[in-house]
């Protein structure tokens, strides 16, 4: 029943789309008034999508296995929480979530943009509707979440155990708010270009949307990363997997866009940058969806290999790209003054430098992700691009990037001289000495490390100092940049100070090394609703003093029958103690992996600082001159 309502709601909402198209074309001829029917229809459409989404949730909660999505991704013994989160833990349901965000953002846009020009609002609505219609047809045609099965199976196939996790349950909705939320920026920029409304007022208005998308995208990526850290059990937090890359690319574009919008709002410069980046952010999001959903790349998020779906998204994506190209080249008017007002030492120049660095990072990630496809098609060669590629290409360029981040915000708009040069130099000297000492103590000998540490410390100290200066105004920016320096420092220390013990133990045995001993005391078995767990108890001692008791788990899920390894992690401010245990085949031994990972929590924490720094500028009323 719920499935049926959900299914028909999709058609009703498609009907709304067609009505909206009709009325907005009609409304375009009216020069003054915004037709309020459009707002009502948009609201109605949102209601239908919400209804459809709830229809699917209810089918999941009731374990209605006549619905093939529920049958394939749920099971009666799942806890309620994971029955609900199973709704978006699959291809069909997550596309319904896409639609929900698309329509929600459109509605919010319409009610919050009443002061904007009428024609611009109608056109934004029109462009967003094109996207909505595209996804509605996609959903109904190729990925219907309400497909029926007959005869009705008595039991479902179950949700993939690694997805049965609290962080991952909320990861898709949060990520989508950012990922799909960028659609409204896309629609808006096309509308603003078409009506020649790219202006300071427009920048001020679109800035909020950029910020919201950016904030949720950052948090969404963070949640995914935290999940990968404790669930995949390798103790890493970023694997350069295609699916991570496709979320990072829109993030880089969005971050750059945000900086450009600031310049646009102040100085009416960089308009072409803003237009291109707004288009790029959403097309990159769609491109990501294409890459991971079509099965063209192998990834953890490949739900199913279905070339038909891939083909549809591909054609739709390129329709949008060509539409944007047309608008950009024929309707968008650049102001001829762009090049004249740039002075080399000014805030806008430093933002321009920042842009080019971000574009470089974006290009590296993009090439690393899709180059294997190109090579395969053109020459039938297969390559796999791993972390070494990204590290080699990105790390050296972080150095000037960090320095630009430290000095850029100190400059004024248009033209400036560096004031207070003395403290800039002093802090640089301190950073350099500190880094030098650290490198000596850690006995890592590379020159590039010293410079990297220096630039990260430099940004750290400069932003830190600014917190204590009274006349300092741009708090949001400073927090975000401070967070970034903290992030880089944490990653560096984490990378260089991590230690690891890997050994095979059986119950009762003790592993001993110079620094520590690990005693495998016992194992116990526990039965839970959706899995059985084997829990090991390990006493970690250092200098004969008990440091930690760690209890890693092996979970044997009943539906589907999969064994997962749950790390036990003890977190404190300075370091994470991380332990996983795995079965060694056909033996009574367990493979134990014990890691000490310094500053792990600071990596997460600094991303939160960055996000909230960004969010803070949402509430900022006065801007610095």
């Amino acid at each position, binding site marked *: 029943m719920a499935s049926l309502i959900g299914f028909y709601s999709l058609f009703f909402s498609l009907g709304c789309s067609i009505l909206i198209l009709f009325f907005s074309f009609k409304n375009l001829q009216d020069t003054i008034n915004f037709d309020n029917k459009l707002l009502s229809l948009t609201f109605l459409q949102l209601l239908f999508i919400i209804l459809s989404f709830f229809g699917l949730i209810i089918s999941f909660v009731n374990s209605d296995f006549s619905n093939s999505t529920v049958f394939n991704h749920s099971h009666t013994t799942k806890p309620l929480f994971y029955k609900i989160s199973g709704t978006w833990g699959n291809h069909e349901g997550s596309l319904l979530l896409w639609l929900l965000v698309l329509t929600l953002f459109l509605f919010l846009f319409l009610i919050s943009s009443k002061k904007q020009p009428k024609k611009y609002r109608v056109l934004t609505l029109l462009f967003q509707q094109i996207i909505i219609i595209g996804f509605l047809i996609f959903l109904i045609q190729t990925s219907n979440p309400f497909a029926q099965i007959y005869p009705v199976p008595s039991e479902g196939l179950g949700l993939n155990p690694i997805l049965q996790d609290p962080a991952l349950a909320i990861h898709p909705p949060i990520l989508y708010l950012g990922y799909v939320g960028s659609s409204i920026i896309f629609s808006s920029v096309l509308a603003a270009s078409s009506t020649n409304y790219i202006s300071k007022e427009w920048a001020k208005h679109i800035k909020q949307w950029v910020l919201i998308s950016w904030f949720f995208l950052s948090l969404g990526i963070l949640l995914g990363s935290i999940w990968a850290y404790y669930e995949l059990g390798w103790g890493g937090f970023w694997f350069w997997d295609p699916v991570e890359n496709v979320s990072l690319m829109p993030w880089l574009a969005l971050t750059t866009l945000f900086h450009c919008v600031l310049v646009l709002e102040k100085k009416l410069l960089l308009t072409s940058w803003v237009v291109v980046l707004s288009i790029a952010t959403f097309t990159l999001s769609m491109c990501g969806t*294409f890459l991971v959903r079509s099965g*063209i790349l192998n990834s953890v998020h490949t739900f199913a290999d279905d070339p038909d779906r891939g083909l549809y998204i591909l054609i739709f994506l390129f329709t949008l790209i060509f539409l944007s*190209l047309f608008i950009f*080249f024929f309707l968008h008017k650049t102001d001829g003054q762009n090049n004249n007002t740039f002075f080399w030492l000014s805030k806008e120049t430093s933002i321009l430098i920042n842009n080019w660095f971000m574009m470089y990072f974006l290009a590296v990630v993009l090439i690393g992700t899709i180059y294997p496809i190109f090579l*395969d098609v053109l020459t039938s*060669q*297969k390559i796999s691009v791993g*972390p070494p590629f990204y590290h080699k290409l990105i790390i050296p360029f972080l150095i000037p990037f960090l320095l630009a981040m430290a000095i850029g915000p100190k400059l004024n708009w248009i033209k400036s001289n560096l004031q207070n040069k003395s403290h800039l130099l002093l802090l640089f000297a301190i950073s350099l000495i500190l880094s030098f000492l650290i490198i000596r103590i850690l006995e890592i000998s590379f020159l590039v490390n010293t410079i990297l540490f220096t630039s990260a410390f430099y940004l750290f100290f400069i932003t830190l100092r600014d917190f204590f200066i009274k006349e300092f105004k741009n708090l949001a920016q400073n927090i975000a940049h401070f967070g970034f320096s903290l992030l880089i420092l944490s990653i560096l220390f984490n990378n260089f100070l991590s230690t690891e013990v890997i050994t095979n133990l059986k119950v009762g045995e003790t592993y001993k090394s110079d620094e520590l001993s690990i005693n495998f005391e016992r194992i116990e078995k526990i039965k839970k609703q959706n899995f059985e767990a084997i829990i090991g108890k390990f006493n970690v001692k250092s200098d004969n003093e008990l440091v930690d008791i760690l209890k890693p788990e092996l979970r044997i899920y009943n539906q589907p029958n999969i064994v997962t390894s749950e790390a036990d992690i003890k977190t404190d401010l300075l370091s994470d103690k991380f332990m996983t245990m795995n079965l060694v085949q056909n033996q009574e031994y367990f*493979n134990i992996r014990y890691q000490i990972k310094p500053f792990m929590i600071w990596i997460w924490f600094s991303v939160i600082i960055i996000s909230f720094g960004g969010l803070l500028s949402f509430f900022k009323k006065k801007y610095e001159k």
Partner: protein
Amino acid sequence: MGCSAFSKKNMKNKILLPFAIVSFLFIFFILYVGLNRSNIYIPETVINEKIPTFKVKVFNSEKELSSIEIFKNDIYYLLNIWASWCIPCRDEHPYLMELKKNKKLKIVGLNYKDKVKNANNFLNELNNPYTLILSDTDGTIAIEWGAYGVPETFLVYNGKIIKKIIGPMNNNLFKEIESAVK
């Protein structure tokens, strides 16, 4: 000035627009073709080529071996190029462990551009399917075999490559190897 700015923009468009259209069409074409390709990696036809001759260090030791000492006649060898940082290598690892049980086959690992510590951890964690591991820290030996990256696997018999697998092994390829060795 307005006029010159306009014509300047026009000029720019004349070059940029066709360029953008052509590049996007090209990308579309590539992705379209890529979509219709199967994801199962198709072996290349280097079959029956002689294996390269080389000298190589044995992993975890200072010993050096030549290719003739490693690949003896009348025995099937599976040369598997792997690295601890390579995620597909983890995927194919269970297949290697399964193949290890086959008494007619010896699996030789070529550890590609890896750190010894990480590689050892990888083996400790997932178990060691190899009878012998060679160390290719700079990746030159993989190049001599004509490998494009990791993982890649070569089935060798009597000094000749009789099968080549690019990318991670899957169930079908696993069965093909089993039947080839019989």
